[in-house]
């Protein structure tokens, strides 16, 4: 009898359980691709981890939603000294921090928070410097330790950054995730409680959404912050539902279990586009996939050989076959959407006959043997390096170049590329801050041509490098545009690489999602989004 009662009870519970939820709040569910490392963008390097911190934080400067333009964030305005080394920021007043179980803010955002956030990354003796492993990769990668001379609090609402040398992209750097501003007061409270690592797990920020909870590997919940300085969001709740398999993300989107999904399978796109409940947004990625030609190795020390190679490969066929049309043929390192893109340059035509003639002129009438490195992994700018390498191999064979495909484990591959081991290697880049400097200087500058540097062509060409350095030191955008346009002419003529494509990024969202804007940097941003 007891057993019967138990079952009846369970049955009744189950029945009531299946009723509709009592919530009427607007909740947007985003099917994301993976779990974050933590919630502090100062420490992270992956897009997945940056995405989860985005709703929570602000920076001194911000990228305009859906664009690469830099606009005021927590800094209302700024001035730059004539020599380009002193940046003075006027901070926004009345900005509130979030609160949680262990912290209730007693004051608004001010200069102390700016110093706290930057000093943590910069100063070895900062109490938080070693917390959570203390690797501030992006801060280091953007050369901040070398660049910064001092950060001073002038008054509560004025902060002065002094640089060692002028650096025009600095303002854009401050809009990057690693430069997110955290609460110094929260830091002090946690330190006192002896749990400093909580700052990276239970984040407090000034952003549009407050962090609610992270259920490891399952979901992340946020709620709209009613006192957000930019006004309360139209959404009440935001949920990241972690779903690693793209086919399952698509199934969830179709079933209405999520509203937005990341990284669809290219093969699913036609079906998504045909589905009236789904909108497929698309945008050219701020990236470049290319084949680097090592100018320090024969025969690529000869410009004619590099040009010949640029004419020997059928770029269009690669984009159709491997990118499945989701790629824009690249003429240049930077995509056409980025400012200073030089429209007047025409890409090398696919012309095997002319390529052969050029090779003969350079002393290689019968071609030559070379290696051709292909990475073992899929990257945002290159869906299938192996396949691309095979297509290139057959095109090159047609002009007498015998290419041998080489591959290594991804970490090893990158290391060897940057050490300058290969003759030809597939590689690529995704932009960080929307500044052309972030493409040209890191991929083709002389500084990056050192062993271990990102210039895998090891191409250091003074006239080109001079233009880049000059552009770095000028803050006038019109002036900088001219310099980069001229630099592109040189890079095209000297051909240290074969640019393949800028991949197109797709973002399927359900029809009821209002005003979702794709981010050119590939982030997934939900501020300003609404549901019908």
């Amino acid at each position, binding site marked *: 009898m007891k057993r019967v009662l138990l079952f009846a009870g369970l049955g009744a*519970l*189950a029945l*009531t*359980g*299946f*009723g*509709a*939820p*009592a*919530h009427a709040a607007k*909740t947007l569910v985003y099917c994301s691709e*993976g*779990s974050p*490392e*933590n919630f502090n963008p100062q420490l992270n*390097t*992956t897009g997945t981890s940056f995405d989860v911190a985005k709703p929570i934080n602000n920076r001194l400067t911000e990228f305009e939603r859906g664009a690469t333009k830099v606009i005021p964030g927590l800094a209302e305005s700024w001035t730059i000294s004539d020599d380009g080394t002193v940046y003075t920021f006027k901070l926004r007043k009345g900005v509130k921090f979030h609160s949680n179980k262990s912290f209730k803010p007693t004051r608004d955002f001010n200069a102390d928070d700016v110093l706290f956030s930057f000093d943590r990354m910069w100063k070895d003796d900062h109490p938080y410097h070693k917390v*959570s*492993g203390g*690797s501030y*990769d992006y801060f*280091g*990668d953007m050369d901040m330790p070398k660049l910064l001379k001092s950060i001073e609090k002038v008054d509560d609402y004025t902060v002065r950054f002094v640089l060692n040398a002028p650096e025009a992209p600095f303002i854009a750097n401050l809009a990057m995730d690693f430069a997110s501003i955290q609460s110094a007061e929260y830091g002090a409270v946690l330190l006192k409680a002896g749990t400093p*690592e909580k700052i990276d797990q239970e984040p407090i920020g000034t952003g549009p959404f407050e962090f*609610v*909870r992270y*259920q*490891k*590997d*399952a*979901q992340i*919940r946020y709620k709209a912050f009613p006192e957000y300085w930019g006004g309360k969001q139209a959404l009440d709740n935001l*949920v990241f*539902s*972690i*779903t*690693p*398999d793209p*086919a*399952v993300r698509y*199934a*969830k989107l*179709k*079933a209405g*279990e*999520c509203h937005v999904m990341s990284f669809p399978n290219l093969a699913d796109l036609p079906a998504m586009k045909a589905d009236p409940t789904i909108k497929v947004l698309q945008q050219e990625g701020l990236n470049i996939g290319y084949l680097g030609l090592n100018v320090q190795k024969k025969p690529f020390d000869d410009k004619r050989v590099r040009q010949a190679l640029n004419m020997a490969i059928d770029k269009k066929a690669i984009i159709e076959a491997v990118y499945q049309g989701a790629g824009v043929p690249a003429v240049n390192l930077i995509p056409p959407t980025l400012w200073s893109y030089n429209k007047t340059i025409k890409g090398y035509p696919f012309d095997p006959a002319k390529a052969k003639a050029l090779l003969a002129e350079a002393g290689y009438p019968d071609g030559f043997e070379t290696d051709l490195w292909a990475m073992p992994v899929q*990257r945002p700018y290159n869906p299938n390096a192996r396949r691309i390498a095979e297509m290139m191999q057959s095109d090159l064979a047609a002009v007498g170049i015998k290419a041998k495909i080489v591959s290594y*484990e*991804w*970490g*090893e591959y*990158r*290391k060897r590329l*940057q050490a300058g081991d290969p003759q030809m290697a597939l*590689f*690529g*880049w995704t932009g960080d801050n929307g500044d052309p400097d972030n493409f040209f200087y890191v991929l083709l500058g002389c500084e990056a041509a050192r062993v*271990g*540097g*990102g210039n895998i062509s090891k191409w250091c060409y003074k006239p080109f490098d001079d233009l880049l350095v000059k552009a770095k030191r000028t803050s006038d955008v019109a002036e900088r545009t001219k310099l980069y346009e001229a630099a592109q002419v040189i890079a095209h003529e000297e051909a240290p690489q074969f640019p393949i494509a800028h991949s197109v990024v797709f973002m399927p969202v359900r029809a009821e999602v209002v005003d979702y804007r794709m981010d050119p940097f590939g982030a997934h941003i939900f501020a300003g989004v609404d549901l019908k």
Partner: protein
Amino acid sequence: MLRFILSRVGMVIPTFFGITFLSFLLIRLVPGDPIEVRVGERGISPERLAMFRTELGLDQPLWRQFFDYVGGVLSGDLGVSLVTRNPVLSEFLTLFPATIELSLCAILLAIAIGLPAGMVAAVKRGTIFDHGVMGLSLTGYSMPIFWWGLLLILTFSVQLGWTPVSGRLSALYYVEPVTGFLLLDSLLSGEEGAFGSAVQHLILPAIVLGTIPLAVIARMTRSAMLEVLGEDYIRTARAKGLSPVRVVGLHALRNALIPVVTVIGLQVGTLLGGAILTETIFAWPGIGKWLIESINRRDYPALQGGVLLVATTVILVNLMVDLLYGVLNPRIRHRR
């Protein structure tokens, strides 16, 4: 009896050390380095790389790292994840209940269907039902988990809309974890509809994970039953005039169960292996998904700790089955 228990426990110790060593070594044989794998296109300067390697102890010789690790394990410290910087043990314990919940439901489903199906197939040997059960179980046994999972999702979740696609709970609910077992937590939370949502989310993954054990149990039960049904005492029981239900359900089943129980114990390993795939497909936040990510990120402590804990679970369950077996069957207990 004590001697029997001691000998079984004694065999566990070398197995445990073997697994500690293997889990430590295997992940280090995978090419790639936890720091290099993190940095992407950007690369890392040799100085910073050296700094991090020192900090994580990766610059030490392998034998030294191993002894440090074993020392830690013996004192209950499995180290800290290289990625999240959280203690491996606490991450494991957060995620393990999800895996246990899924595995338990899967095995219960497999027993609930497999046992009767195997029994009936044995009794109705040679009939269409028998061939049907055996054919289906062979199909189930050969079904690749990822394919079977996607097939069920597309049919029942996308086409028919009967079950949710993935996850453990609808995003509309918010249940504070108390036990980690969502079926219990959702009841404890008192949130209306949460329990139903948790049950619905369990259905497909439990079916997918339970399919192989179900097939194995059905086949094992059938053959064990067939063997027992031919015994003299069954004929005697029948001759005595006992009802067929009593003969099969009581006399035959009890004796046929011994090999079946062993097989169920052995299925625990299969279940945890299958859970890795099932969890990835259904975005089920258990240890399977966690281990896969740890491999991708070369998170040595998480992976070696996780594998060790899973293996320990399997060893313990099998030890328990061994002991139980001895309790059930005196012949085994007393055998030298």
